[in-house]
């Protein structure tokens, strides 16, 4: 790791791809941490200490981005100059919107006590499976160089991740956390 604007994939010496070797990512991250972490510069001058804090912060951001599938997908699109923040009508098909609405409704209709826990568990499974399928689709589109389709799938992933968070927080509320 040399500078503060290095490509995240190249920091970890990984090929630029959505499918990545998480174990290699993690072991490389640890190896780099032992080189740049501020603890290694406890006796150094202020300048070097500050540099260590900045480098480690950048390394942590790179690691979190690549480790988290949705952030990794967004990063790949950004590398190809796509604005992941903006969504146009073209990005979202009508069938997708209807599917999402149905999933959301099935969440809202569940009873508000812990009797809903088995259904929430099932819903979690369904959404997780769907996420896995869509991630495979995303990886394929990136591999084939069709980033416009990849961007559409990215927005579907966003919907599904959001839904999964809501299912989880619905579960937490019913468990009394």
């Amino acid at each position: 790791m040399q500078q503060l604007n290095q490509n995240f994939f190249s920091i970890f010496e990984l090929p630029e791809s959505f499918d990545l070797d998480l174990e290699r990512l993690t072991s490389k991250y640890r190896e780099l941490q032992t080189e740049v972490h501020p603890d290694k510069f406890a006796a150094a001058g202020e300048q070097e200490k500050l540099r260590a804090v900045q480098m480690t912060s950048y390394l942590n951001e790179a690691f979190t981005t690549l480790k988290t599938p949705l952030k990794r997908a967004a990063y790949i699109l950004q590398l190809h100059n796509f604005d992941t923040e903006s969504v146009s009508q073209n990005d979202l098909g009508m069938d997708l919107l209807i599917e999402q609405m149905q999933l959301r409704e099935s969440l809202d209709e569940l009873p508000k006590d812990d009797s809903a826990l088995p259904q929430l568990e099932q819903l979690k499974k369904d959404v997780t499976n769907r996420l896995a399928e869509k991630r495979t689709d995303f990886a394929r589109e990136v591999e084939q160089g069709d980033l416009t389709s990849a961007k559409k799938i990215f927005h579907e992933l966003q919907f599904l991740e959001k839904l999964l968070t809501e299912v989880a927080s619905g579960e937490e509320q019913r468990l009394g956390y």
Partner: protein
Amino acid sequence: MALLQISEPGGKPTTPAHRIAVGIDLGTTNSLVSASCGAGVEVLPDASGNYLLPSVVAYASDTDPVVGSVARAQSTKDPKNTISSVKRLLGRALSEVEQAPQFKQYEFDAERGDGAPAIVTAAGVKDPIQVSADILQTLVYQAEHSLKAKLEGAVITVPAYFNDAQRQQTKDAAKLIGLNVLRLLNEPTAAAVAYGLDSKEQGTVVVFDLGGGTFDVSLLRLQSGVFEVLATGGDTALGGDDFDHAIVDWIKQQAGFQVLSSTDEAKLLHYATSMKHQLSNSEEVSIEFNGWSGSLSASDFRDITEALVKRTILTCRRVLRDAQLEVEAIDNIVMVGGSTRMPVVRQAVEKFFGKAPLTDIDPDKVVAIGAGIQADVLIGNKSADDFLLLDVTPLSLGIETMGELVEKIIPRNTTIPVAKAQEFTTFKDGQTAMALHVVQGERELVSDCRSLARFELRDIPPMVAGAAKIRVTFQVDADGLLSVMAEELSTGTKAEIQVKPSYGLNADAIEEMLKVSHENAKADMEIRALREAQIEAKQLIDAINSAREIDGDLLEASEARQIDNAIEHLASLIASGTSVQIHESTEELNRISSLFAARRMDLHIGEALKGESIDKVEQ
């Protein structure tokens, strides 16, 4: 003296390269100091051979402060000048602590401008930083006497759930006595180091730290000497004290005591504490009190403390969830803090995780030992290659945006050090200054989070609303301390602060805030929607009004009246309507004024095109 020490026969062989650094566990009830001594890290005793230094300081007008067991012994004789539990005052405001039962006997200085809970003593007014500094000073003497060398630095432990202000003030206390702080280390992380390094352990470990007044849980992954904290959680209002009070309540109920004198209350609490200790080794304890006699069995104790134990397990569950791990993934559980000696706690932990927790290191010493190991690494004695700690932020950090909403910038459980940048923009045309308000907490509204600092970015070049780009960078260092920098991108105007507020987050409120955060997630969302609708509506009204100042003559009288009515209607809804009503009415105003907007557009495009050549326009 120094020369004599080097050649002292029989003394520990000290090579010049060996530098002296200690680990300090600065506790609510007791404090400890440790250092590397030959084979490993050991807790250093005082002159009488005691390892625990009671965190009590006694002040007098004619002598230096007295710290430790002597101070504790005189606390009943001179309560006003004997300060204990000062850790609970660090980073707090006077208003948060003056009603707390353990601080009732003190006279707080109400005149102070900074709102800190400073205590009036015979030796003058003492704030929590000064009292903590006196405890640290005693530990430093104890260590220097024991090691016969001058200290070069220390690692001081803090609860993982300590906020920015509490961390900052702990560091300030060390600064006050000229002690070089190598690192602030989270207590559960220190405990994991003590266990992990000893046994060369690999895998995923939960540290369960139940002290006298606080509870911390951390989940770590240990691999090839790297200790990576995956998630941390806690309950700053749960500890051994609560188990004592449960026994008190049970006795009162059994004996039918209605009202007790305050001396009897204190006596009963004292009995309860000793019954709790006895129940760790026996099945039943009998009690006689004010003519009533009875006995408390281990199973009664289990029943009356069930709710408390359940709370500790809920926190474990939440931490597992934050780390996205199942119970089966946990290889070991480390027990820290005197309260983990209770069998009810150990059994509940064993049942939840499906394996017996590790208890082989004295739970009172384990944090200090871990701090000593880290100190030895940071001062450069131990090779740093075989050991690295990666810790996380316990609470989310964010910034106040329009409508008193919080924009989270660094979510809780993010690995530190971390830097995050976020861009903000101006809200009004020609706005030249922007106030930034930094908060800590999990809720969506500013008023429900802890205010950390406010600062102002000035000299923003006047631009239309939304054109300025202000990048705010949050940097949390390895001690968990925050600094914030703001920069206007088009001109490079900068503002930077180290967050250093006069007091910190009410630690008792943190867990409450987390809990309520989940309960209120829905209410927050509704309030958020309302605030957003209000802002959107105000922006539209402002835009129409300023457009009419310039191009009002483009409107016919009837159109102007129609717009006036719609604005009036919308303004009344901003004050009292729901988000849906405001939104609909905003849409309506937008529709009514669209013709006006279109005319303005035509006019201004026409003006802009004057003098441009045709082929340029076509491009």
